[in-house]
Protein backbone atom coordinates (compact mmCIF):
# COMPACT_ATOMS: atom_id res chain seq x y z
CA UNK A 1 0.00 0.00 0.00
CA UNK A 2 1.39 3.47 -0.86
CA UNK A 3 2.55 5.60 2.07
CA UNK A 4 -0.46 7.90 1.97
CA UNK A 5 -3.10 5.62 0.43
CA UNK A 6 -6.57 7.02 1.17
CA UNK A 7 -8.00 5.27 4.22
CA UNK A 8 -10.15 6.34 7.13
CA UNK A 9 -8.36 5.52 10.34
CA UNK A 10 -10.46 4.39 13.28
CA UNK A 11 -8.16 5.92 15.90
CA UNK A 12 -7.81 9.39 14.43
CA UNK A 13 -11.29 9.67 12.93
CA UNK A 14 -12.61 11.37 16.08
CA UNK A 15 -12.59 15.15 15.42
CA UNK A 16 -10.33 16.14 18.31
CA UNK A 17 -7.80 13.40 17.63
CA UNK A 18 -7.79 14.35 13.95
CA UNK A 19 -7.12 17.98 14.87
CA UNK A 20 -4.32 16.94 17.23
CA UNK A 21 -2.70 14.95 14.41
CA UNK A 22 -3.07 17.94 12.04
CA UNK A 23 -1.19 20.19 14.46
CA UNK A 24 1.50 17.66 15.23
CA UNK A 25 2.01 17.04 11.50
CA UNK A 26 3.10 20.67 11.05
CA UNK A 27 6.10 20.53 13.40
CA UNK A 28 8.62 18.16 14.88
CA UNK A 29 7.17 18.63 18.36
CA UNK A 30 4.35 20.61 19.95
CA UNK A 31 4.02 21.31 23.63
CA UNK A 32 0.95 20.06 25.56
CA UNK A 33 -0.03 23.57 26.69
CA UNK A 34 0.17 24.98 23.16
CA UNK A 35 -1.96 22.14 21.85
CA UNK A 36 -4.49 22.68 24.62
CA UNK A 37 -4.68 26.39 23.89
CA UNK A 38 -5.13 25.93 20.14
CA UNK A 39 -7.74 23.17 20.39
CA UNK A 40 -9.56 24.55 23.42
CA UNK A 41 -9.87 21.32 25.39
CA UNK A 42 -9.47 20.88 29.14
CA UNK A 43 -6.28 19.23 30.39
CA UNK A 44 -8.06 16.00 31.24
CA UNK A 45 -9.95 15.86 27.93
CA UNK A 46 -6.77 16.46 25.94
CA UNK A 47 -4.87 13.87 28.01
CA UNK A 48 -7.61 11.33 27.28
CA UNK A 49 -7.45 11.95 23.53
CA UNK A 50 -3.66 11.83 23.58
CA UNK A 51 -3.48 8.58 25.51
CA UNK A 52 -5.51 6.89 22.77
CA UNK A 53 -3.11 8.21 20.14
CA UNK A 54 -0.11 7.14 22.24
CA UNK A 55 -1.59 3.66 22.79
CA UNK A 56 -2.07 3.31 19.03
CA UNK A 57 1.59 4.21 18.48
CA UNK A 58 0.68 7.39 16.60
CA UNK A 59 2.08 9.92 19.08
CA UNK A 60 5.10 9.97 21.38
CA UNK A 61 5.46 11.99 24.58
CA UNK A 62 8.67 13.43 25.94
CA UNK A 63 9.28 15.56 29.00
CA UNK A 64 11.65 18.46 28.53
CA UNK A 65 12.64 21.82 29.94
CA UNK A 66 12.39 25.10 28.03
CA UNK A 67 12.65 28.59 29.50
CA UNK A 68 13.22 26.97 32.93
CA UNK A 69 9.81 25.28 32.80
CA UNK A 70 9.09 21.58 32.65
CA UNK A 71 6.97 20.80 29.60
CA UNK A 72 5.43 17.80 27.92
CA UNK A 73 6.30 17.65 24.24
CA UNK A 74 4.29 15.60 21.75
CA UNK A 75 5.29 14.34 18.34
CA UNK A 76 3.62 12.38 15.58
CA UNK A 77 5.34 9.06 14.83
CA UNK A 78 5.97 7.89 11.27
CA UNK A 79 3.01 5.54 11.64
CA UNK A 80 0.83 8.37 12.94
CA UNK A 81 1.89 10.60 10.08
CA UNK A 82 1.05 7.87 7.58
CA UNK A 83 -2.38 7.34 9.13
CA UNK A 84 -3.07 11.07 9.16
CA UNK A 85 -2.01 11.55 5.53
CA UNK A 86 -4.15 8.58 4.48
CA UNK A 87 -7.11 10.02 6.34
CA UNK A 88 -6.66 13.39 4.65
CA UNK A 89 -6.41 11.67 1.26
CA UNK A 90 -9.69 9.86 1.98
CA UNK A 91 -11.38 13.19 2.74
CA UNK A 92 -9.91 14.71 -0.44
CA UNK A 93 -11.29 11.80 -2.47
CA UNK A 94 -14.78 12.45 -1.16
CA UNK A 95 -14.49 16.12 -2.10
CA UNK A 96 -13.07 15.23 -5.53
CA UNK A 97 -15.87 12.75 -6.20
CA UNK A 98 -18.35 15.58 -5.69
CA UNK A 99 -16.66 17.69 -8.34
CA UNK A 100 -17.24 15.03 -10.98
Amino acid sequence: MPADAPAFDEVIHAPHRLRICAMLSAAQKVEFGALQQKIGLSKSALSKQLSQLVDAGYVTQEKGVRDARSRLWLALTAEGNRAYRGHVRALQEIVASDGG
Partner: protein
Amino acid sequence: METPSGRRLSPQEAREALAQLAEDEDAVRYPPIPRWFFLVGAAVVAGVALAQMLPPRTAGLVVLPLVVVMGLLAHRYWFNADGVSGASVKLGDMAGYLTVVLGTFAVGWLVEATTDAWWIWIPCAAVTATAVLVTGQRYVREFGHAR
Protein backbone atom coordinates in the same frame (compact mmCIF):
# COMPACT_ATOMS: atom_id res chain seq x y z
CA MET B 1 -15.82 5.67 1.19
CA GLU B 2 -17.23 4.81 4.62
CA THR B 3 -15.95 6.10 7.93
CA PRO B 4 -14.98 3.63 10.68
CA SER B 5 -18.44 4.09 12.19
CA GLY B 6 -19.98 2.97 8.88
CA ARG B 7 -21.45 6.37 8.06
CA ARG B 8 -20.72 8.03 4.73
CA LEU B 9 -19.35 11.54 4.95
CA SER B 10 -20.94 14.05 2.60
CA PRO B 11 -18.64 16.08 0.33
CA GLN B 12 -19.60 19.18 2.31
CA GLU B 13 -18.60 17.53 5.61
CA ALA B 14 -15.32 16.36 4.08
CA ARG B 15 -14.67 19.87 2.74
CA GLU B 16 -15.30 21.40 6.16
CA ALA B 17 -13.06 18.82 7.84
CA LEU B 18 -10.23 19.55 5.40
CA ALA B 19 -10.60 23.30 5.95
CA GLN B 20 -10.40 22.79 9.72
CA LEU B 21 -7.31 20.58 9.38
CA ALA B 22 -5.58 23.12 7.14
CA GLU B 23 -6.36 25.81 9.71
CA ASP B 24 -4.97 23.64 12.52
CA GLU B 25 -1.79 22.89 10.58
CA ASP B 26 -1.32 26.58 9.81
CA ALA B 27 -1.81 27.50 13.48
CA VAL B 28 1.36 25.53 14.24
CA ARG B 29 3.23 26.17 11.00
CA TYR B 30 2.70 29.94 10.97
CA PRO B 31 2.76 31.34 14.52
CA PRO B 32 2.15 35.01 15.28
CA ILE B 33 5.45 36.79 14.59
CA PRO B 34 6.48 40.24 15.91
CA ARG B 35 6.09 43.02 13.35
CA TRP B 36 9.70 44.08 13.87
CA PHE B 37 10.81 40.68 12.56
CA PHE B 38 9.73 41.74 9.08
CA LEU B 39 11.36 45.16 9.42
CA VAL B 40 14.64 43.43 10.28
CA GLY B 41 14.06 41.00 7.39
CA ALA B 42 13.55 43.90 4.98
CA ALA B 43 16.74 45.58 6.23
CA VAL B 44 18.65 42.31 5.85
CA VAL B 45 17.61 41.61 2.24
CA ALA B 46 18.24 45.26 1.34
CA GLY B 47 21.66 45.00 3.01
CA VAL B 48 22.48 41.82 1.10
CA ALA B 49 21.48 43.51 -2.18
CA LEU B 50 23.48 46.69 -1.47
CA ALA B 51 26.49 44.62 -0.40
CA GLN B 52 26.74 43.40 -4.00
CA MET B 53 28.15 46.86 -4.86
CA LEU B 54 31.18 46.14 -2.64
CA PRO B 55 34.25 44.15 -3.66
CA PRO B 56 33.42 40.40 -3.45
CA ARG B 57 35.52 39.73 -0.33
CA THR B 58 34.05 42.69 1.57
CA ALA B 59 30.55 41.79 0.37
CA GLY B 60 30.98 38.32 1.86
CA LEU B 61 32.00 39.82 5.21
CA VAL B 62 28.87 41.98 5.21
CA VAL B 63 26.42 39.34 3.95
CA LEU B 64 27.44 36.50 6.26
CA PRO B 65 26.54 38.17 9.59
CA LEU B 66 23.30 39.50 8.10
CA VAL B 67 22.25 36.03 7.00
CA VAL B 68 23.28 34.52 10.36
CA VAL B 69 21.27 37.12 12.30
CA MET B 70 18.19 36.53 10.14
CA GLY B 71 18.58 32.78 10.48
CA LEU B 72 18.77 33.02 14.27
CA LEU B 73 15.71 35.27 14.42
CA ALA B 74 13.72 32.92 12.17
CA HIS B 75 14.84 29.98 14.33
CA ARG B 76 13.59 31.67 17.49
CA TYR B 77 10.47 33.52 16.37
CA TRP B 78 9.19 31.31 13.55
CA PHE B 79 10.38 27.70 13.59
CA ASN B 80 10.56 27.43 17.37
CA ALA B 81 7.87 29.82 18.56
CA ASP B 82 6.41 29.28 22.04
CA GLY B 83 5.14 25.72 22.44
CA VAL B 84 6.40 24.58 19.04
CA SER B 85 9.66 22.96 18.01
CA GLY B 86 10.70 22.62 14.39
CA ALA B 87 7.68 24.02 12.56
CA SER B 88 7.74 22.90 8.94
CA VAL B 89 7.11 25.49 6.26
CA LYS B 90 5.36 24.59 3.03
CA LEU B 91 7.59 25.74 0.18
CA GLY B 92 4.52 26.27 -1.99
CA ASP B 93 3.22 28.89 0.45
CA MET B 94 6.43 30.88 -0.01
CA ALA B 95 6.67 30.45 -3.77
CA GLY B 96 5.51 33.99 -4.62
CA TYR B 97 7.83 35.63 -2.11
CA LEU B 98 10.84 33.51 -3.09
CA THR B 99 10.20 34.12 -6.79
CA VAL B 100 10.22 37.89 -6.29
CA VAL B 101 13.30 37.98 -4.04
CA LEU B 102 15.42 35.41 -5.88
CA GLY B 103 14.21 36.72 -9.25
CA THR B 104 15.25 40.25 -8.29
CA PHE B 105 18.72 39.06 -7.30
CA ALA B 106 18.99 37.09 -10.55
CA VAL B 107 18.06 40.19 -12.55
CA GLY B 108 20.58 42.25 -10.56
CA TRP B 109 23.44 39.84 -11.25
CA LEU B 110 22.49 39.55 -14.91
CA VAL B 111 22.28 43.31 -15.45
CA GLU B 112 25.52 44.00 -13.59
CA ALA B 113 27.39 41.23 -15.41
CA THR B 114 26.25 42.36 -18.83
CA THR B 115 26.25 46.15 -18.46
CA ASP B 116 28.44 46.99 -15.44
CA ALA B 117 25.49 48.94 -14.08
CA TRP B 118 26.45 48.62 -10.38
CA TRP B 119 23.61 50.95 -9.41
CA ILE B 120 21.12 48.19 -10.31
CA TRP B 121 21.53 46.95 -6.73
CA ILE B 122 19.84 50.08 -5.38
CA PRO B 123 16.47 49.35 -7.04
CA CYS B 124 17.02 45.64 -6.29
CA ALA B 125 17.39 46.50 -2.59
CA ALA B 126 14.19 48.54 -2.72
CA VAL B 127 12.25 45.76 -4.48
CA THR B 128 13.38 42.96 -2.17
CA ALA B 129 12.81 45.03 0.99
CA THR B 130 9.33 45.94 -0.25
CA ALA B 131 8.60 42.26 -0.96
CA VAL B 132 9.51 41.39 2.64
CA LEU B 133 7.40 44.21 4.07
CA VAL B 134 4.37 43.34 1.93
CA THR B 135 4.72 39.65 2.80
CA GLY B 136 5.04 40.57 6.48
CA GLN B 137 1.95 42.75 6.34
CA ARG B 138 -0.05 39.92 4.75
CA TYR B 139 1.36 37.41 7.25
CA VAL B 140 0.42 39.55 10.26
CA ARG B 141 -3.05 40.14 8.83
CA GLU B 142 -3.62 36.41 8.36
CA PHE B 143 -1.83 34.86 11.32
CA GLY B 144 -1.50 37.69 13.83
CA HIS B 145 1.54 39.23 15.46
CA ALA B 146 3.38 38.51 18.66
CA ARG B 147 4.87 41.01 21.09
